[in-house]
């Protein structure tokens, strides 16, 4: 589904502090599977995730979603792809404070101009399915870490994306909450979603729901299973 060909990414290129986060990655991510990018801090996991999710462009190399090259797409098309194909769960969740959880969930759907009533129903249904229905009207800053993460997952799913991307999803959770999260991943997989995660948590990498683990070190792919 997603193919990466000799992808390289540099930060501060041409400056004294130039840093190559990725040094030639060739990879295929299969549709409907759960893939984890594993590696120590600074190995390039998050950078790789942002390139796959069209949040950044590679310095060289190509990223293809099905047959279309998405690494060189004009920005207007990237926005559409980000909105319709990918759902993001960020490490710090990035919920907007001052508005309710359900409003946070609905935000990515606003630019699509969907019927507000239908949208609200879908947002509530998603929150119910993730067991956070009672927290729908709570402001984002009042939520616990686990609740905030589930709101972030509901937000990622509001546009019914094919691919859900999660950056270090269990980094801020205790073991019980991490197990609950993996249960949600199992549900997403059963629903036919492709899930991409970064993690160095053994609980995530060794769980049965994960189909594919890609190990990175110093910006290079060292192992893939």
């Amino acid at each position, binding site marked *: 589904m997603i193919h990466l*060909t000799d*992808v390289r990414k540099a930060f501060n290129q041409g400056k004294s502090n130039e840093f190559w986060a990725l040094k030639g990655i060739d990879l295929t991510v299969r549709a409907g599977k759960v893939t984890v990018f594993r590696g120590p801090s600074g190995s390039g996991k998050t950078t790789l995730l942002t390139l796959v999710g069209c949040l950044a462009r*590679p310095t*060289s190399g190509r990223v293809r979603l099905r047959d279309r090259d998405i690494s060189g797409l004009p920005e207007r*098309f990237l926005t559409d792809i980000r909105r319709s194909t990918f759902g993001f769960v960020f490490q710090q969740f990035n919920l907007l404070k001052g508005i309710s959880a359900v409003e946070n969930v609905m935000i990515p759907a606003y630019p699509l101009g969907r019927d507000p009533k239908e949208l609200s129903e879908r947002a509530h249904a998603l929150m119910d399915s993730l067991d956070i229905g009672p927290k729908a009207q709570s402001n984002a800053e009042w939520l616990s870490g686990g609740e905030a993460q589930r709101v972030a997952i509901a937000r990622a799913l509001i546009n019914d994306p094919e691919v859900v991307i999660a950056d270090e999803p269990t980094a801020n959770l205790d073991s019980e909450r991490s197990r609950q999260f993996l249960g949600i991943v199992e549900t997403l997989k059963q629903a036919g979603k492709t899930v991409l995660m970064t993690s160095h948590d053994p609980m995530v990498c060794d769980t049965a729901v994960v189909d594919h683990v890609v190990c990175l070190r110093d910006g290079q792919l060292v192992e893939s299973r």
Partner: protein
Amino acid sequence: MVFQPAIIALLLASAIGTLMVVASVPFAINVLRRWDTASGSEAQLEMEKRTYLVSTLLVVVLASELASLVLFVFNADRMSSLFVGAMCAVGTLNVNEFGFPTLYLKIVVFFAAGVWLVLNHVDSRGYDYPLVRVKYGALLALAPLMAGAAGVQLAYFLGLRADVIASCCSTLFSGNTQVTSDKLATTAPEAALSLLALVLGVVLVLGRRVLKSGKGAILYALVSGVAFVVALEAVVAAISVYIYEMPQHHCPFCILKGEYGHVGYALYLPLFAATALGLGGGVAAPSARIASLAEAGPRMVRRCVGASMAGFALFAAVTVWLIVRSHLILIEQSPVNAILLNLSGGQP
């Protein structure tokens, strides 16, 4: 003389515009030589990123070129009070030998910039930069044109002398000399208006065909160009006379003056916009054959042609209104009868 706000604005706009376009030329050459979307090389990705910046800058610069033509004409008209003998923009443009060449070059730049903006807009609708080479190839042609226009304009403004006795428009548009402008004035108003009606009719028929079937946009563009020339001829030969209500006054610039309600702008703005959009529609038409523009290309062509038709229709409506409200009876029968008679070979 150069230190007039409008002149400073025009000089700055053309200098900055030319600088921007000339600075984009190396990038344009790079695109023409090295653009290859199949490659994932660093240089290719760098070009893909930079094309946003260059295109955005060029859009601003070329849009300002469109506005600068209007400002140039407005300024020429306003400055006529500074020169002995000048009654309108014609006098100002005649102060030295660079006046009219500047105007003509600015008109050419106006249409070239309009076409480039349409090309750029169509290109931005395709996900694979479908017209990027065409766009930057066209920029290579546009750069010397803009630089030439800026240079001639600078020479014109630097050569403005208040002690020069300028020619009044009556010497150019009286119908008594052999210069081209005067020959335009001698064209019979019936013939000029008949031809105008005929060409505008053809424009609308062709435009309707483009809107319905999506075909014929290139022909529409060509006829738009013809309609532009015929419309200017009609302005000199007949429309201006109806506005002034003086049979011997054919100046196409005095109609811009406040004493005639600046009605010239109501004629020229739709006409220039309609022509530019018509040309743009024709240039955009071949893009429909490109897979990534299969939907957006024809849609853009229809929009351009539709807007162009509206512009020509507005020009026609203003013309009819000016003739109807005029107290001058230039043609004994009503203009409609005269047109019909002319078309059928009879005498009005």
